[in-house]
């Protein structure tokens, strides 16, 4: 078990990393009184609620709806996974690196498909980066140098509330001492959002027209004149003005969100975006970065890529990793009814998937490992509650710009961490596969 942090009276924990969104603010101050979180300083409202309400809606250990002990649940989970012929391991973006690494080792052991919530979030961004590369930087560089910020198909005012104040809009840096006055902020979206209110300019484009717009901007950047009067519902002259601002900036960055990854074009939208920002480097320093959602969403892609060579949608059924979005990605595996058992960790698959995918998941043995009740835990065969990573379990997380940060344990939990649960499931399955001898029997080449 992890070390206890229980203490009588007030304990102030400084330098706490928030596990909620991809900004992973690491300057939180958490006040704990008699083992309970009473106050959170420096966090945004989303971060505050993450800590202050972490005890609400806790999951309970159960098997087929009946109360059970955690030990019994771990045994039942191991049995399901050891018997499965083509299992799925999914979720993982709201936990810490050690749990993610153990999940990959387990996938290797049982020949599973392993995918994570990025698959239905920023996976098209990962595919695009693999296709054309990315010129990017840390948020520190943005804070200190960027004089042009473009938020395209993203809404940090509601999804990443401290990104603007810490790094991209009002933050004061080495070459941006006046903060907002030293920057121009442009918002491109299909609708005005609270982010529009913090921008100097707003360009409203037609839904599903992003690829066309990026292609037009690339053509104009290369000196071509376009025949059309407008592209994406916006006058060509307005796009020319945007292009001039991009070319004349000293250090520009384009942040994009799921407005691009989830709409028509998918990864091709991002390929066009990345190519445009790379080509702008003929004129000035210009970069791009995705606005990532969950606290350690980048970590899972980092660990999976380090371990298998691929960032998501990995299949281990042949004892070595194979990658094929559209085949081994969670949406397709479930829509085609291919997997025969599932382990869902720190993610609400049923609550977020299209109905047909959820239907298959509900028809197979499913294990849910989660601190809180969700649509997934409601219907899971086995529910294993865990200590929430970044609050009741420590570890590491990657910030959205790929910087690893320490996540602290600030309170105790009666339940084990995701890592401990996965480690115990792994040991049990390993023993079953090895005829009860207990020695690990890893099928492939992945390093554990």
């Amino acid at each position, binding site marked *: 078990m992890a070390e206890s942090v229980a203490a009588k009276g007030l304990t102030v924990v400084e330098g706490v990393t928030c596990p909620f969104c991809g900004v992973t603010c690491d300057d939180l101050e958490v006040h704990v009184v008699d083992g309970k979180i009473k106050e959170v300083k420096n966090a945004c409202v*989303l971060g505050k609620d993450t800590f202050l309400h972490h005890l609400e809606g806790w999951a309970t250990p159960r098997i087929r709806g009946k109360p059970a002990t955690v030990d019994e649940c771990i045994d039942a989970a191991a049995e399901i996974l050891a018997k499965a012929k083509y299992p799925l391991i999914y979720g993982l973006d709201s936990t810490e690196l050690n749990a993610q690494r153990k999940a990959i080792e387990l996938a290797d052991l049982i020949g599973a498909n392993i995918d994570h919530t990025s698959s239905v979030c920023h*996976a098209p961004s990962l595919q695009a980066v693999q296709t054309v590369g990315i010129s990017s930087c840390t948020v520190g560089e943005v804070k200190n140098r960027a004089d042009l910020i473009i938020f395209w198909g993203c809404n940090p005012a509601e999804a990443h509330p401290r990104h603007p104040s810490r790094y991209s809009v009002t933050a004061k840096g080495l070459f941006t001492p006046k903060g907002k006055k030293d920057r121009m902020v442009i918002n491109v979206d299909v609708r005005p959002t609270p982010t529009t209110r913090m921008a100097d300019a707003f360009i409203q484009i037609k839904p599903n027209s992003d690829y066309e717009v990026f292609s037009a901007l690339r053509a104009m950047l290369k000196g071509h004149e376009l025949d059309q009067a407008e592209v994406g519902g916006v006058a060509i002259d307005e796009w020319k003005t945007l292009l001039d601002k991009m070319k004349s900036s000293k250090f520009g960055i384009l942040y994009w969100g799921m407005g691009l990854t*989830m709409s028509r074009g998918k990864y091709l939208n991002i390929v066009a975006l990345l190519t445009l920002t790379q080509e702008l480097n003929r004129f000035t320093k210009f970069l791009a970065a995705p606005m990532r959602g969950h606290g350690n969403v980048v970590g899972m892609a980092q660990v999976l890529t380090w371990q298998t060579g691929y960032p998501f949608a990995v299949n281990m059924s042949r004892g070595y990793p194979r990658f094929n*979005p559209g085949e081994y990605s969670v949406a397709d595996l479930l829509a085609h009814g291919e997997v025969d058992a599932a382990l869902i960790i720190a993610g609400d698959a049923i*609550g977020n998937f299209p109905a047909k995918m959820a239907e298959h998941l509900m028809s197979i043995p499913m294990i849910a490992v989660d601190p809180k*009740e969700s649509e997934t835990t409601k219907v899971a065969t086995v529910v294993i509650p865990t200590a929430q990573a970044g609050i009741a379990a420590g570890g590491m997380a990657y910030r959205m710009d790929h910087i690893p940060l320490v996540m602290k344990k600030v309170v105790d939990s009666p339940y084990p961490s995701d890592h401990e649960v996965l480690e115990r499931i792994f040991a049990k399955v390993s023993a079953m596969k090895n005829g009860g001898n207990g020695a690990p029997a890893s099928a492939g080449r992945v390093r554990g």
Partner: protein
Amino acid sequence: MSERRFILITGRTMKQGRSIHLGKEAKEFLDEISTLQMNPKDIEALKLQDGGQVQLKTPHGSTVVKLKKGDIPEGLVFIAYGGFINALVGPDTQGTGMPNTKGIEVEVERYG
């Protein structure tokens, strides 16, 4: 005309992000993810009622949500991410792994 096609945009909202911590059964969370925002001119044109119920339909399924006027361009409707949109999204990913979750064509009609 009581029925019209719109482009459905899904996304995060501050209320959804905050109330999710109260639990997925919490009234605040369920209220937020079951409220569709529409331009007031579209509400008037379809003779719908701000605060009334509407049914959304795609070839994949349908769902009933509450209507609220919002700062949304005409022809678009917006709803926060959550279980209410799952029935509307198809499983096809065109080989990318990503279902079409934004920019979906939906039919909107008065319910009840």
